[in-house]
C-alpha cells in the first residue's frame, strides 16, 4: 500500500507541475505582454482550467498529510515562510483573475498581482525543489535550519530556472490555444526561453558539482539516470528546431516531455528517500492500517473522480480560442 500511495503522490505532483505549470507560465507571460487583446486571450485560454489545476496541489498536500505524515510535518516546518508566501501569492493571483473584470480603476493593479503572483509561486516552488535536492538540515527527525535556510544562491537559481520552465509550458499552451499575432509572439519567445533554460540548467549542474552536493553521487551509482536528462534534452532540441513546422500542439507536448524527464531525474535520484538522505519513503509513511483505510476512500473513489472531471474539462474546452465577432 505504501508503494501505491508513493506512486499516486508522484503522479499527483507531476500532474500538478504540468497543469498548474502552464497556467502559472501563462500568468508570467501575461506580465510580459502589453497588448490588452493578447492579455484577454491568454486569460481566456486558461480560465476554464486554472483553478482545477490547483486542486492537484491541494491533493498532493493532502496525500502527504494522510499517507506520509512525517514528510508532511518536516517539509511544512522547513519551508514555513516560502509556503506562506506561495499561498499568499496563489490567493492574490486567483482573486486577481476574477477581480480584474470587475475593476474600474484598479485593473492595472490586479494585472500586476496576477503576473507577480505567478512569478512568486513558480520561484518558490523551484527554490524549494532546489533546497530539497541540496539537502534540508534535519537532525533526529526535526528540522534544525533557520527560517531562510531554503533561500541560497543555488535554490534561487533553481527558482529562476523553474520560472522559465513554467513559462515555456505556458507558451506551449498559448501556441496550442490561440491563433494570429499572439501565437507568433509565443513562437518567438519559445526559442529564447529554451536557450535560457538550457543555460540555467548547465549553470546549475556545474554549480552543484562545485558545491559537491551529495545527490550527485547518485549519478555515479546509477548511470542509467542519465537517460532522463537525455530525453529532456531531446525534447528541448525538438522544441527548438521543430517550431518551424507549425503543428501548434507540439511545443506543449515537447515541453511536457521535458518536464516529465526532469521529474523522473529527481525521482530516480531521490529514491528510496523522500527528503534526500534524511527521510525514506518507508519512514515517512503512515501506519499500514491508516493507509489501507485511506485506500478504500480516497484511492478508489476520490482520485478517479478528480481524474475524470479533469479530463472532462479539457475535453469540453479542447480546440482553439476564437474571438467572437459581434
Amino acid at each position, binding site marked *: 500500500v505504501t508503494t501505491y500511495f508513493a506512486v499516486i503522490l508522484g503522479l499527483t505532483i507531476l500532474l500538478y507541475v504540468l497543469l498548474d505549470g502552464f497556467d502559472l507560465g501563462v500568468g508570467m507571460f501575461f506580465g510580459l505582454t502589453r497588448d490588452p487583446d493578447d492579455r484577454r486571450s491568454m486569460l481566456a485560454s486558461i480560465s476554464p482550467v486554472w483553478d482545477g489545476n490547483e486542486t492537484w496541489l491541494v491533493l498532493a498536500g493532502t496525500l502527504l498529510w494522510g499517507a506520509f505524515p512525517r514528510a508532511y510535518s518536516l517539509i511544512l516546518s522547513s519551508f*514555513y515562510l516560502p509556503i506562506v508566501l506561495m499561498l499568499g501569492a496563489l490567493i492574490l493571483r486567483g482573486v486577481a483573475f476574477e477581480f480584474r473584470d470587475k475593476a474600474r480603476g484598479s485593473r492595472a493593479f490586479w494585472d500586476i498581482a496576477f503576473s507577480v503572483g505567478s512569478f512568486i509561486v513558480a520561484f518558490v516552488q523551484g527554490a524549494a525543489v532546489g533546497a530539497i535536492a541540496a539537502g534540508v538540515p534535519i537532525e533526529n527527525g526535526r528540522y534544525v535550519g533557520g527560517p531562510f535556510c531554503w533561500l541560497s544562491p543555488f535554490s534561487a537559481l533553481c527558482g529562476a530556472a523553474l520560472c522559465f520552465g513554467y513559462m515555456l509550458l505556458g507558451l506551449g499552451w498559448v501556441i496550442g490555444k490561440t491563433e494570429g499575432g499572439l501565437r507568433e509572439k509565443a513562437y518567438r519567445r519559445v526559442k529564447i526561453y529554451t536557450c535560457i533554460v538550457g543555460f540555467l540548467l548547465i549553470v546549475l549542474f556545474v554549480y552543484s558539482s562545485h558545491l559537491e552536493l551529495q545527490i550527485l553521487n547518485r549519478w555515479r551509482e546509477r548511470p542509467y539516470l542519465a537517460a532522463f536528462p537525455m530525453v529532456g534534452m531531446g525534447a528541448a532540441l525538438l522544441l527548438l528546431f521543430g517550431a518551424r513546422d507549425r503543428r501548434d500542439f507540439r511545443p506543449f507536448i515537447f515541453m511536457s516531455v521535458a518536464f516529465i524527464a526532469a521529474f523522473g531525474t529527481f525521482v530516480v535520484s531521490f529514491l528510496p528517500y523522500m527528503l534526500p538522505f534524511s527521510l525514506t519513503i518507508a519512514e515517512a509513511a503512515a501506519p499500514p492500517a491508516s493507509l489501507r483505510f485511506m485506500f478504500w476512500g480516497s484511492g478508489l473513489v476520490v482520485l478517479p473522480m478528480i481524474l475524470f472531471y479533469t479530463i472532462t474539462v479539457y475535453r469540453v474546452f479542447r480546440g*482553439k480560442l476564437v474571438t467572437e465577432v459581434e
Partner: protein
Amino acid sequence: LSLPINQYSSIQIPLRRRRRECHDPKADLHSIPFFTFRIMVGCGLLMLGLAWFGSLLQLTERIDRQRLLLWAICLSFPLPFIATLTGWFTAEVGRQPWTVYGVLRTADSVTPSLTVGETIASLAFFGSIYLLIFSFGTIFIFRLIKAGPDGGGAEVAGNAKRPMAVAGKAPVWHAEEAGW
C-alpha cells in the same frame, strides 16, 4: 455550514463537563463558541427565511411591492461571510486546548522550529492580503447591488460556458474545432 454544527454537537458535552470540573480563567474562552455558534446558526436561519419568504412572494408575484423585504435582502449580503467566520471561531476556539480532541494538545502540536517572528510575519502577511481582498470585494459587491438585478444579470448571461466573463468582449471557445 454543516461542518461546524456537527463538530460543535460532538464536543458540546465534554465542554460542559469541563466547565463544571475546572474553574480556571481560561474557562471564559467557552463563551466565545457559545456566542459564535448561535450567531452562525442565526445567520443561516435568517438567510433561509429571506430566501424562502422571498421565493414564496415571487411565486405570487407580489415581491415588487414588499419594500421592507427587498431592503432586508439587499442588506443581507454580509450574512454568509459572518456565518462562515463565526463558524470557524466556533470550531477553532471550541476545541481548545486540543488540536485533535482528546488526542493531541495544541501546545504539543506546535512546530518546534517555528519562531515568534515567523508566526507574526505570516499572520501579518495573510491579514494584509485578506484586508486588501475583502476591501475590494466589498466595493465590487456594492457596485453589483447598486446596479441591481437587471444590471448584474446582463453581464453574467453572456456565455454560459464562462459565467464569470464579461459578455461580448472576451474570446469564446469553439468546441467543434477539435485540434486536440
